[in-house]
């Protein structure tokens, strides 16, 4: 039995140490807002925060989390940056099909927490690992700038 902290709650989990964090979040804790995409850290849809850093949860064994705080899309609205990003996403209707958006929002919130006023370059760099097959990139960039100003 290991304990992990997700969205400021501590959970005892039964999964073995090598289980990807994503499986634990979705199957054991029922936090299905974080999505499965490629499973090899290439698409970014499974992004969560580990002590504030954007991490692909499909590639992170739960045994390596330790005492670090996990934040998922279900909890990111509790943070200042996360709340502003979510509001901007609604204001600008960034989402199209929506499947990648939990990952986009998590990466955007991590960026704003580290860099309150990112320019285009910084946005491109930080969001590079998050794919959107609908092609909402232009609105994502506008959304981040909108959130930064709010």
């Amino acid at each position, binding site marked *: 039995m290991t304990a992990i902290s997700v969205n400021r709650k501590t959970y005892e989990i039964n999964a073995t140490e090598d289980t990807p964090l994503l499986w634990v979040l979705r199957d054991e804790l029922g936090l299905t807002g974080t999505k499965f995409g490629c499973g090899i850290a290439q698409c*970014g849809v499974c992004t969560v925060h580990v002590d504030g*850093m954007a991490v692909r949860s499909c590639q992170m*064994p739960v045994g390596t989390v330790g005492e670090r705080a996990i934040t998922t899309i279900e909890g990111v609205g509790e943070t200042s940056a996360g709340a502003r990003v979510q509001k901007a996403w609604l204001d600008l209707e960034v989402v199209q099909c929506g499947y990648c958006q939990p990952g986009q929002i998590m990466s955007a919130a991590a960026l704003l927490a580290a*860099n309150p006023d990112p320019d285009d*370059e910084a946005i491109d760099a930080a969001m*590079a690992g998050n794919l959107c097959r609908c092609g909402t990139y232009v609105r994502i960039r506008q959304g981040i700038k909108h959130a930064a100003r709010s």
Partner: protein
Amino acid sequence: MKRKVILSLAAGAAVLGAAALGLTGWMVFQPGPYAFATGKPIPLSAYHGPSPTGVPAELASAAPAARGAYVAAMADCQACHTAPGGKPFAGGRAFVLPFGTIYTPNLTPDPETGIGKWTDAQFLNAVHRGIAPDGSHYYPAFPYPSYTRLSDEDVLAIKAHLFALPPVKQANRPNTFGFPYNQRWLMAIWSALFNPNERFRPVPEQSPEWNRGAYLVEAAGHCGECHTPRNLMQALDQRAKFGGGVAEGWTAYNISSDKISGIGDWSAQELASYLSSGHAHGRGVASGPMGEAVELSLSHLTKADIGAIVTYLRSVPSVKGDLPALAGPAPATPKLARIDNPVGKRIFEGNCASCHAWTGAGAAREEAQLTGVRAVNDPGGANVALMILHGSGGPTPHRPYMPDFGKVYSNDEIAAVTNYVTARFGTEPSQLTADDIARLRAAN
């Protein structure tokens, strides 16, 4: 007039001859590998401290097989004497050298293709003096100038370990050296000049731990074979001891106590962690030949032996290098406009950023940190390119690892992403070209 010409020619020849002699003498008459230490080395038999040779105290009463395996791990025979994907110790691993390719021989006890018929005396002669049972000389790719310091007991413990292995029938491959390098008899001269042919001599003025470390580093571990530069005659240049060298295309970094190029600002704990597990927090990951040394040798050593190695390493004097100081963490607002490298940027964003994080801080696991790591802060760029080509760390059960990208990207692309990574996260960018990558592929 004629006489004058002859005289001046003779004088010129004499000057040249004297210069050549002087240069050879400079290369031959070098300090020993631990001549830097205060004190006078004495024969092992005259030393009264705890024995610096053999297995550590906790294994003293272990079965002979366990002791033999430990000594064989200390000397790391397996790394070179195993071909990729081949049977352990059966040889066949290629070393691509400027003069041709050499293949390591089979060390399993098969009587025909291995060393099954060798006597103790023949094995000692091979390891201490570089002479095969048929009297021919080995090339110093086999590090017998280091192994010569191993005690007879330790060499024979290695032999006992090898003879307990399952025999593998695998014929040795001849090397592809051209003239004059295929003249093995020349190695007799090289050996006479550069193999001290003497067993380890402890230094009583130094601590027992230091002496054990010296034995592990100089006799068994043969660290200098990669980390000390070589002179014109391919012998180790002990005047620049641990100043850095090259191993199969990889840069074997300066491990002297120089604070910038070397390991002078590593703590003892960092060194111990790196040596025993291949990683220390913020210090990167042992990859390539060093990764093998950790996997097959250092990770099997006891904590006390790793501590002894650290004690010894930290006593090695500083050799100045030309590597830049490590750049700190990447800024939150990266100045990307100055990096005109769209191909490298595209590949980094698509393949690297998810695990290494766009800040280079490392996301999937802490070993993935790029900032502050020596390989990334090396404008030579070879080790970054080789890690991209071959991956790093190898498949670790149940943990993410760095996969190899050599098969999916062209030389141009590998060069571009290497130059991008060093530009973005290091002190100075590398300037590798497709030709450089082709050379690195061939070297490994």
